[in-house]
Every structure is written in structure tokens, then in C-alpha cells.
């Protein structure tokens, strides 16, 4: 009975641990499934026609011409390339080797080109608009995910990201309108995010309340508070209190003129540039500073950290307040960039997607950022495809981040291992 291979044993008896074994089989299986999916799309629902990719915006150094390709032939080509990648991956698996990252990237890129070619038959895909829009949609998710990563790395589960985003959006709209300055709004959003973090810390760190419960309840509390204040105060005085100024797009002189990359990354609003800096700072601080080492140590093994003199709860407090400020700033994006006014429940559960990005990004700032960008891409792709009238039901595109996350936590896509002491309050002594 005990001859089953370790790789595929269902972990019947240890369901508590968030640890799953690394199985190299995942990549080939996933590649195969995706390739077959694309094959079925072109076989069963392929229509002849041309697909055009528009890559330029007009103000670049030089203009990349539009690329027009025959849909069916191109999709078939991509299916073939994907099949090759799958075969290569299977070969590596049989040789007991991991599928390298570059192969995953090539596969993903080719698959996406094939999918887009199929989905946009007879239409033009504005590639720059698609990607720039994805970045815009991902901004609050990235801020939220960074806040989540910081908190969880210090051992505090933060389900309240959604509450922090919503509180940030509210505060940014209110203060931005009163002061008449976008940066005052951003500052207020950071304070609001910190206030939510303050409640989280009070109950989770000081009173040892289950962190998931606090997070869920805080989300409800923030929805209730902001909706109440919106109806009672903001809506009747919309001109004075709910009419914040808006961030304008600031093209960065030279970088913004680079074809393809410039319009996507360097013709954005100031808050997006702040985001780049934040991602870099958080990553550097978490992995390269004494502070980061301490944060990670209280999340992994608080007792050991305490033994060497690190104040566990003080460290956790400082970290979640910082995380709250970052997540709150993401909320400002809603009211100072997307829609220049606050609406009830306007985040629409984005905090939960950010949470998904934290897990899918394996509690790493860079990977969580990439996951958030991926989710932003999925939701913007849905918008673009529905505009050009594609056959893909929009609901399935919107569902994608959540399904991917379920697969991720189930260990079917990559491994996911949380910080060891996440969710456990620390009692000294």
C-alpha cells in the first residue's frame, strides 16, 4: 500500500499545512491542456478573416506599422508552437528536470497571441491601449497586493485589503474635494488605510482575535461606514465634498516616446510613477535591509525573533500600519484617477483580487505585482474583447483571476507556501 509515489499522493492526512510538494508534472500538464484548448477553439469556432494588431500611437520616435495576419493560419501556427513547447516540457519532465521559466514565458506569449488572433478575427486590437489599460486597472490591485504581502510577511493575515482600498478611495475623494489638491487626497487615503490597519492591529495583535474574522468584519464595517457617510453627507453636498481634482497624465520626456513601451509605462498619471517606486522600495526593503529581515523573521518564527531581541508585536504593528498606508494609496486611484468621485462599494471587491494576487504571487512583492498585472490584463482584455465583439463571454474572462487562484492554492499551478506564522497571534512568554 505504501508504494505510491510521493509526488502525486493526495495529502489526505495533513490538510492543515499550506505546504504542497513541488511537482514538475504541472507545467507539461498545464501546457497540454491549454494547447488543446486553443486547438479546440480554432477547430470548432475558427472563422476565416484577418486580425490586425495596432502597435503604435503616433507620437513615438518611429512608427511601428500595423500588423495584419490571416486569423486561422496564425492561430494554427501558434498552436503548433505551443505544442512544441509542450513536447519540450514533457521531455524535460521525463528527464526529471524542471521546465525553465523562459519556456513558460514563451509558451504564455505564443498562446496569448494565438488566442487574441482567434478572438479578434476581422477586427483590430489596439495593443498599446490594451496593455496601458491593463496597467491602469491593475494599479489599485498592485498597491493592495503590496500591502497584503507586507502584512502577511510579518505574520498578520490581511483580509481587510478591500476595506483599506475603499476607505482610501473615500478619504481621497473627501479630502481632495475640500482641500482641492490631489496630493492631499493621496495623503488622506494613506491615513484612512492606516486607520483600518489600526483596527486590524488592535484586534488581531493586541486582543488575539482571529485575523481572518477581523479582516472580514472590517470589510463589512468599512462598506457600512462609507456607504452611510456617502448617502448622508457626500451625496447631498456632492459639489463641495465629492468633486475631487483629478490626476493628469504626465508623459515622461524621453522614455514616453519609446515605441510600445513608452505609451504603456511612461505616459501615465503621477500615482502610477509612485507605484513603480513603491514596488521597488518594498522589494528592496523586504529583502535587503535589517528592517526587512526582522519583518520576515516575525512572520516565520516569532519565538526565535523574540529570543534574539526583536520586539515581535511592535514590528508587526509598524509593518501593518505601513501596509495600510500603501493599500490605502491604492484606493486613491479610484477617486483621483479612474472616476473623479466616490460611489458606494466602488472597489467592487478588488481587495479580494489583491489578496488573490498575494497568494498567487507567493507572498513576494515582485511576483505579487506581476500577478496583479496579470489580473488587470484579464479584466481589461475582457473589456477590449467585448468592444470589438468577440465570441468569448465576458464573464469567463472576469472569472479568470479567481479560478487561477483556486488552482494556485490547490497546488496545481506552482507551489504556494505562506509565511509559517501567518495568522497566529504572538503571546509573549
Amino acid at each position, binding site marked *: 500500500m505504501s508504494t505510491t509515489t510521493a509526488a502525486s499522493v493526495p495529502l489526505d492526512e495533513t490538510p492543515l499545512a499550506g505546504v504542497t510538494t513541488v511537482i514538475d508534472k504541472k507545467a507539461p500538464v498545464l501546457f497540454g491542456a491549454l494547447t488543446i484548448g486553443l486547438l479546440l477553439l480554432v477547430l470548432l469556432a475558427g472563422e476565416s478573416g484577418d486580425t490586425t494588431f495596432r502597435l503604435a500611437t503616433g507620437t513615438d520616435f518611429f512608427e511601428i506599422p500595423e500588423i495584419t495576419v490571416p486569423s486561422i493560419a496564425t492561430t494554427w501556427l501558434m498552436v503548433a508552437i505551443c505544442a512544441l513547447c509542450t513536447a519540450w516540457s514533457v521531455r524535460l519532465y521525463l528527464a526529471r528536470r524542471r521546465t525553465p521559466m523562459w519556456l513558460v514565458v514563451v509558451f504564455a506569449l505564443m498562446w496569448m497571441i494565438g488566442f487574441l488572433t482567434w478572438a479578434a478575427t476581422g477586427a483590430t486590437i489596439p495593443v498599446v491601449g490594451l496593455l496601458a489599460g491593463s496597467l491602469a486597472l491593475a494599479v489599485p490591485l498592485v498597491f493592495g497586493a503590496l500591502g497584503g504581502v507586507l502584512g502577511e510577511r510579518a505574520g498578520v493575515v490581511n483580509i481587510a485589503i478591500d476595506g483599506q482600498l475603499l476607505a482610501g478611495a473615500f478619504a481621497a475623494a473627501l479630502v481632495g474635494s475640500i482641500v482641492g489638491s490631489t496630493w492631499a487626497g493621496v495623503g488622506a487615503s494613506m491615513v484612512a488605510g492606516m486607520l483600518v490597519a489600526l483596527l486590524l492591529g488592535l484586534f488581531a495583535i493586541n486582543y488575539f482575535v482571529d485575523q481572518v*474574522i477581523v479582516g472580514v*468584519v472590517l470589510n463589512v464595517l468599512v462598506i457600512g461606514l462609507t456607504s452611510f457617510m456617502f448617502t448622508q453627507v457626500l451625496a447631498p453636498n456632492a459639489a463641495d465634498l465629492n468633486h475631487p481634482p483629478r490626476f493628469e497624465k504626465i508623459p515622461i520626456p524621453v522614455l514616453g516616446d519609446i515605441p510600445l513601451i513608452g505609451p504603456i509605462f511612461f505616459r501615465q498619471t503621477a500615482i502610477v510613477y509612485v507605484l513603480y517606486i513603491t514596488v521597488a522600495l518594498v522589494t528592496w526593503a523586504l529583502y535587503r535591509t535589517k528592517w526587512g529581515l526582522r519583518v520576515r523573521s516575525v512572520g516565520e518564527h516569532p519565538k526565535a525573533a523574540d529570543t534574539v531581541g526583536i520586539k515581535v508585536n511592535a514590528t508587526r504593528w509598524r509593518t501593518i500600519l505601513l501596509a495600510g498606508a500603501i493599500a490605502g494609496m491604492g484606493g486613491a486611484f479610484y477617486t483621483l484617477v479612474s472616476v473623479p468621485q466616490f460611489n458606494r462599494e466602488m472597489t467592487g471587491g478588488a481587495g479580494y483580487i489583491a489578496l488573490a494576487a498575494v497568494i498567487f504571487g507567493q507572498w513576494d512583492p515582485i511576483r505579487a505585482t506581476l500577478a496583479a498585472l496579470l489580473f488587470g490584463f484579464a479584466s481589461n482584455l475582457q473589456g477590449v474583447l467585448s468592444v470589438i465583439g468577440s465570441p468569448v463571454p465576458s464573464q469567463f474572462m472576469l472569472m479568470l483571476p479567481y479560478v487561477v487562484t483556486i488552482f494556485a492554492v490547490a497546488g496545481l499551478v506552482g507551489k504556494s507556501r505562506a509565511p509559517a506564522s501567518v495568522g497566529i497571534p504572538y503571546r509573549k512568554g
Partner: protein
Amino acid sequence: MSNPAGTDERPPSEPEGAEPEEQQPSRWHGVLREITSSSAMVAVLSVLLAIAFGSILIAVTDEEVRSTAGYIFAAPGDFFNALWDAIWGAYTALFRGSIYNTRAETFEQAIRPLTETAKFAAPLIAAGLGVGLAFRAGMFNIGGRGQMLMAGAASGWVAYQFDLPGFVHLTFAIAVGMAAGALWAGIAGLLKARTGAHEVIVTIMLNYVAYYLVFFALSKQSLLQAPGSFNPKSLPAKDSAIMPKLLGDQFNLHLGFLLALVAVAFTWWLLERSSLGFRIRAVGINPPAAKASGINVGRTYTVVMLIAGALVGLAGANQVLGTVTSGVTVDLDAGIGFDAITVALLGRSRPLGILAAGLLFGAFKAGGFAMQASENIPVDIVLVVQSLIVLFIAAPPLIRAIFRLPAQEAK
């Protein structure tokens, strides 16, 4: 995070057999102790504190109060009158909307709010049981929304698709709904048992997946969408599948409330009197110990989530077949899936506690709408008060510190 609500659970090490042999007097003694113990006291104080905070919020945002506050030192009477009017008005409206309408002309109208409270309480109780049962096994079921959506869509489909005699049709529709809820929750249980995937994340994600799935089905003519319609809505339920009204047509109270009571009794029996319930509690208190004593922990997780999903599914069926019978929409859960979490927490994951908590929050809901209509206070205040209650209850030391109660035991 293993046992969120079971903090007041007896430690498993306490030997059951160590109690004196005669159990007869201890039962009532225990009940008495439970009522007077400071845990109940904390619950009551938490509710009061939350209501007090709600009052502040109402007062601060009241136009009259704010304008009189401008000249508070000139005429403090005006300010305190306005303050009293705002708060008293709000809470009497809440009372009139949830328990007894003192302004009604006939007895039927006066008692009507109470039946509305029961109507709102029914799905909260059923879904609260689903969340609470999972808590007892140490699992956090945040997936109430998704489970209700899947159950509601399934029940609604049976309700308009089939032609069956009255009682059979209704039973069938409820059963299919509960099965759908059970399957949806079962995914989370199975994934936890098989792969260790955390049920909090999986259920949250399944909420959204269910939302988009039901949305997709409701916008497809070939699936659930009403023929010829452009709205994401299904056909209304046929009369044979609609839950009968309990007190005649002038009241909205329907069979769902009785079913919720049956669910309370069933869950109580399951947890306290069945061997499965014993296994559930054992797993919830200490999974390694349960495993060591021969309980299949993984299977228990799956079974618990199946039953929990069926209970939440009952709430979904209750919405579609009883409360809003005009057709399935994506809003059918009406926030109940999340409210159920607060109900289960307030009820301390015990069936009778959930019944009481469900009735309280049902009263808040019924009264909240009345408050909005008559006093112009947004119904969202109810969310604030509810979430504060749960936060305070979850942190007894905080309540004891605020009210300077003696600590229960030395730390």
C-alpha cells in the same frame, strides 16, 4: 486560524468522565451559569456599545444636530433636543419596523413588523448555521454568497422549468437548491482535504466564480435567461414551487422560517447527539488528536462542507422560492452570505445562539428599512452596528476594559 469561533470551547483534555456521575441537576445549573456568566454579559454589552456608536454616527451626520451645534453655547437646549430627536427617532423607528408598530390602526398591522423580522431572519439563520457548522469543524466558510447563488439558481431553474404537483415541486426545488449549495461548498472541503488549500481563500474565490457563472447563465437564452428578455433574469417561479405563506396573504412570512427552525433542530441534533457531530467537534478542537484517535480528518472536512453548503443552500432556496419569487437574479443573495458570518460569530457557532443572532439581525434588517423610510437614515448603519457587535464580541478583554469588568481568569 484553525478554530476561529471555538474560543470558548472546553479544552479537549478536560475529561468528560471526571464530572460527578449524576447529571440531572447539572443541566439546568449549566444553563443558568451560561446565562449569567460574563460571556453572555459581554454579548449584551457589545450590542449596547455598538448601538451607542451607531447613535453617535447618526447624531454627527444629522443636519439638525449639526446646525444647532453651531450655537451650542448660546442655546444648549436646542442642541440636546435635536440630538435626542435624532437618536430617539432612529431607534423608535427601528423598533416600529422590527417588532411592534405602535402607530398602526389594527392589530394585524401592528404585529406585521414582527413577521417581517421572522421573514428576514429565516435565511440568516439557515446560512448562519452553514457558517457556524463549518466553524465547529475549524473551517471558515466565507463562501455563503457563492453557495447561495448556486443554490438559488438551481432552485429557481427547477421552479420554472418543471410542472409538478404543488408539494412535490416545492420539495424538489428546495432539494435541488440544497444539493447545488452543498456541491459548491464541497469543492472547498474536498480541496482542503486533498491538497491543503486554505478554505478561506477557496471560498472567497468561489464566491466570484459563482457570481460570474450565474451571471453568464442568466444572460444566455439557452441557459437561464427568460425567453425574449434582455435582462439577466430568469422566468418567475411557478406557483406550485412557491413556499406557502404561513399567516395568510396579508403577511409576507412564508414556509422558509419554519424550515429554518427545522434546520436549527437538525444542526443541534447533528452536533450534540450524532457520532458525526462528535467527529466534527473533535476535528475542530484538535485535528491531530482527532486523527490520532482514528477520525478521518480529511473526510470530515469534506462532509462538513457538504452539509454546511446544503444549509446555506436552504437560504438560497428560501430567497428564490419564498421572498423574491419573480425570478433568479445575480443579487438574490442580498448580502446574506456575508451577514451569515456575523450571525454565526454572534451566535458563537451554536445552533440556538445562531437562532437568536439570526432573529436579532433579522430585526435589524426589517427595522433598518423602516428607519430609512421614515427617518431618512441610510440602512447601511445596520451594517456598521452589526460589524461592531461582532468585533466587540470577538474581543472580550476589550469590553471588560471599557466597562471595567473584572477579568474572568488570571491571564
